[in-house]
Structures are given as C-alpha cells and as structure tokens.
C-alpha cells in the first residue's frame, strides 16, 4: 500500500513560469434594463508553483466571481467577456466545455466555504472519492477503495476506513471540511482554489484546517489560490496578496510588504478597522459601504469612501504603480519606487 507521502507528485524544478497566469480577465453581469456591469474588470495576476496567493475582498468585491471565471463556471446572467487564463500551457478561456471538464477537479481542485455544496448528500464520502478516481481514470475497484482511505488518512480524518462509509451529514463541520479537502486532492491537482474555506468554522477548527492546508500544500506540492475576507487568515497562509475592490485588484504585494506598508487607502482602512489590543477604544471605520454592482463610480471605485479623494480620482481608473518590485498599488497617490504609503 502506498503511503500518502509517496503519492505526492515529484517536486517540480523551480521555474520562472507561473503555474497560473491570468491577464485582463473580465466578467460582466446583465442588469435590469439591459445594462451590463463588470463584476470582474480587467483582472491580472499570477500564481507561482508551490505559491499561495491570497485574494482578499469584502462581499461584492468580485473575488468569488474571479474564482468561478477561472474554472469557467459563470452562468447567465453572467458572462466572461475577455481575458487569458494560462494554466499548464493552455488558455482555459479558449477551451471547450469537454476539455474544461478534464481540467476541473483533475488539475484544479476546489474547496468551498460550505462543504455541503461540494459533497453529495446521498453518497458516502468514500464513494465520492472513488467515483472521482474512476471518472479521471486514476484507479478502480479495490485500488480506488484503498486510495480513498489513504486520502482520508492524509487529511487526518480519524478512523478513515470506517469514516469512508459515512454520509456527509454524519460528519461534524470540521470533518466535512477535511473530507472536501480530500476530495479536492483526489486527482492530485496542481492548483487548489479555496473560497472562504474556514469562514463557517469555529476558530479552533479553523486553526486545524489552516494547518492541514499548509501540510497538504507541502505534501502535494500544491499552488493555492486562497479567497478570503479575513486578513488574519491571509497573514498566516499567503506568500502574496491581491486586494480586490469594485471588481479590480487595487493592490498586490508580498504578504509582509502589504502588512508593513499598505499602499492603497482601502487596504490601509481594512487593516486599521481591525480590533487591536488598545482596549475600550473606538475602531477606525471606513465610511460608507461597498456599492452594489452597477452603481460603481467611474474612476476609482473606492473614491467616494476615500479620505484622500481628489478630483482626478473620479475622472479615470488609476493605473497600477509599482511602489517596489513586489508591490503594486492602484492609486493616484502611489509613487513609483517609494516602497510604501502614499
């Protein structure tokens, strides 16, 4: 019987070419009255081999639509209108549905906030893993059964041989999340997209799942696109961070650089409004709310809430400014090469 360790794909030699290279991704949604609005607007980013990119934003920022666009699961009234999604040498934006099905679940695994979306309630956990193995032609029969138990063992489900025969509803929230991670890893994908994987969990269970994802990343040489609104989770997990607001990436940086020198007023506001150790104090709030899709202003989407707003912010969307080699900021106040705060 092969151990979980030996199943991990061999470590790829360091390569300058990223595993995932997204450029100009745009997805629009039809609104009432025939108008269309871009929920994801000209988004570009890369995820390197073995790297974790944190995609951060509030609800309505476009982060989940970005993830669904990558795996081509946008349904009407939504529609992807542009962009290139280079992944393992092919442009996912141009693949037909048949070819796309060989990528989804096989080369790109998913972990969602709510395990019940990904797990089928009428089949046992073990059956669902075996089915995935068989569909992708990776194992059948007794071999598939053994492999399913190994995977459950790898994600530290206690008593995996017995748990494989459990239905999803028989598992606790944390175990269900582990089963979903096992399912996501079944076909040994090179990229896992995790959309708010710990948001519904208690903090102690969240800590266990984050530890598990970290281990799996190493064991399976995974790249991880981690979508979250929680900057604490990002600080713990991500190598780099992209912050989304109003359908665009407004800041992208190495995690340490982002936390040390947040460059966009929105990122600064997000960090400032988190409760810190100063007891009994008021919090620093960002005024206003995220406007609904279709009501985003021309120019910088954050301008109406921004304390540093200038007339030019409302005139046009600012470009990205490289404040350092690893840190881009989409703000008119950002100074190229300044390395820090506008």
């Amino acid at each position, binding site marked *: 019987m092969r151990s979980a360790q030996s199943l991990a794909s061999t470590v790829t030699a360091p390569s300058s070419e990223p595993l995932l290279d997204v450029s100009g991704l745009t997805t629009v949604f039809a609104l009432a009255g025939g108008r269309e609005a871009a929920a994801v607007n000209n988004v570009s980013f890369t995820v390197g081999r073995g790297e974790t990119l944190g995609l951060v934003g509030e609800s309505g920022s476009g982060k989940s639509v970005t993830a669904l666009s990558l795996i081509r699961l946008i349904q009407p009234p939504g529609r992807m209108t542009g962009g290139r999604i280079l992944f393992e040498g092919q442009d996912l934006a141009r693949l037909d549905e048949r070819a796309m099905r060989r990528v989804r679940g096989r080369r790109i695994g998913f972990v969602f906030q709510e395990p019940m979306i990904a797990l089928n309630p009428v089949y046992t956990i073990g059956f669902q893993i075996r089915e995935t193995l068989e569909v992708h032609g990776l194992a059948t029969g007794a071999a598939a059964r053994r492999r399913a138990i190994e995977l459950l063992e790898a994600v530290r489900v206690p008593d995996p041989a017995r748990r494989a025969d459990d239905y999803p509803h028989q598992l606790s929230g944390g175990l269900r999340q582990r089963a979903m991670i096992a399912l996501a890893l079944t076909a040994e994908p090179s990229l896992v997209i995790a959309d708010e994987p710990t948001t519904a969990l208690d*903090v102690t269970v969240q800590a266990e799942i984050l530890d598990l994802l970290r281990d799996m990343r190493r064991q399976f040489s995974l790249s991880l696109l981690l979508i979250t609104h929680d*900057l604490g989770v990002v600080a713990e997990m*991500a190598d780099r961070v992209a912050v989304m607001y109003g359908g665009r990436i407004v800041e992208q940086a190495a995690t340490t650089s982002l936390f040390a020198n947040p460059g966009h007023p929105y990122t600064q506001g997000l960090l400032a409004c988190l409760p*810190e150790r100063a*007891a009994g104090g008021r919090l620093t709030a960002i005024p206003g*709310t995220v406007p609904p899709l279709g009501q985003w202003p021309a120019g910088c989407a954050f301008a109406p809430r921004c304390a540093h707003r200038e007339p030019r912010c409302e005139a046009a969307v600012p470009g990205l400014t490289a404040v350092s080699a690893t840190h881009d900021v989409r703000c008119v106040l950002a100074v190229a090469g300044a390395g820090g705060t506008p």
Partner: protein
Amino acid sequence: MTPLVNVQRLVKQFAHGGLWRARAGVRAVDDVSFAITRGETFGLVGESGSGKTTTGRCILRLIEPTSGRVEFDGRDVLALGASELRAARRHFQIVFQDPYSSLNPRMRVGDIVEEPLVIHRQGTRADRTARVAELFELVGLSRDQRRQYPHEFSGGQRQRIGLARALALNPSFVVLDEPVSALDVSVQAQVVNLLLDLQQKLGLTYLFIAHDLRLVRQICGRIGVMYRGRLVEVGTAADVFERAAHPYTRALLSAIPRLSPGARLERIPFDAAGFTPQPLKEHAPGHFAAV
C-alpha cells in the same frame, strides 16, 4: 452596588435533542453564574454549541430556563408572570445577528421601529412618529428613510434599524447577539462605534455575545468564556487574554490568526475528551477559572 443583571446557577436542559429519536437531556447551559454591573459591557465568548446564545436568551426569557435565578435590577425575572414579564421587557432588549432575517420584509422600516411603542401603548400617534424620527437620527439614519422597506438597506443599515427598534422603549440593558458578525469588515467598525457611542450617550449596559475574540477584547470590560454549556473562565479582558488560566481559554486564544505575517503562535491543543465540569474558583481578585 447591586449589579444590574445577576445570573445565578442558570441551567437550560433541552429534553429531546434528536430529530429521529429521543436523546438524553442536553445541558445547553450548565450551572452558569455571572453578574453585569450598570454601564458595563460584559462579553460572552465561545464556539458554536457552547451555550452563549442560549444563555443570552434565557436571561431575557426568550427561552425558559430549566432552573436558576436571573435578577434584573434586583427583581427576579424568572418569577414574573406573563403580563409582568411583558411590562418588564421594555427594560431589556436584544439585537440579533442576522439583519437580513430579523426584520419583517413586508413592513416599512419606520413601522418596524415603531412597533414596540405600539405594543407597549406609548404616547399618541404623533408622539410615536416623533420618537421614530428621533431614533433614526440616533442610529445614524435619515428620518426620510422611514418609509422604505428592509431590502432597500445594506446589512450595516439594517443592523442600525434593528438597534433603533431595540432602543425604542429606552431599555437599560441590551443583549447583543453577534451584532456585527454578518457584516463586512469595513462596516463592522461603523456599527461597533455606534454601539459604543450609544452606550455612552444612553448609559446602556450590554451583554455582548460573540465568537470574534479580537473584537470582544477591544470593547468588553469583563469577559466570560463558555465551553460545552459551562462558564470556564471569567475576568477582565486583560485577565482572560494575558493571564488565561483555563486550558480551553489558552487553546482558544492560540487559535486566533495573527495579523503579523510570519508571527504564528504555536497552537495549544485542548484535550476535549478529558474535559470535566469544575466549579469556578477565584485565582486572583475578580479572575475566576474552572480549574
């Protein structure tokens, strides 16, 4: 000074927990005692199933406790008859977590805020209209928004409406049950600040129920930590966060993600199987732990 709220040996046993078969009684709240002084914010933290929400609801008698005593301003709340309880309810109110399901979607928000005044027969129609306008401004909404429906408001605004309704009868005590956890991060801070402002302006006493430990530390004077229906630790924010005495509290604190990249603390595991209920003991003045 007598506390405003005094909870003694509160127990809530749910008789049949199972959907398909009767299970042995589950003690959702198990021998919980604490007191809240006037003007204080007392935080109740714990994970799902710890009993923190049930405790809050038992205090307001939205759920009838199995046993124990709850004193409000010196009066035994659990001894009140139905009509006395209705009358007393104006003094203690609750704000719920989910601003999307806690407001009646078919009512104009002005009527939602006015409803408690109607139920308690407060003032004339004109008085009530003036009071509703005043409440809207108190929570940072425009009085012109009274005729709109809940769906026309964002989550943060809906929580302001829920707060205006809770404050309509001038309560002295408000249970805040995860009041900001359904809101976006950037909006949470606005609502927290509003809660702090209102407390100061109106002299409110809060029971703040939350799972966000960072937030609880920020705004609560004293904190109780619940685990499996038991209160395992009570103390000031500094006692609990800097001198945690109970192993569960330590495990819980070690699980909070750090905001500084690379500065991850070692997780402290907690032996759930080895947990046995213990009475609270005073380890230092005002700092109690069940060890």
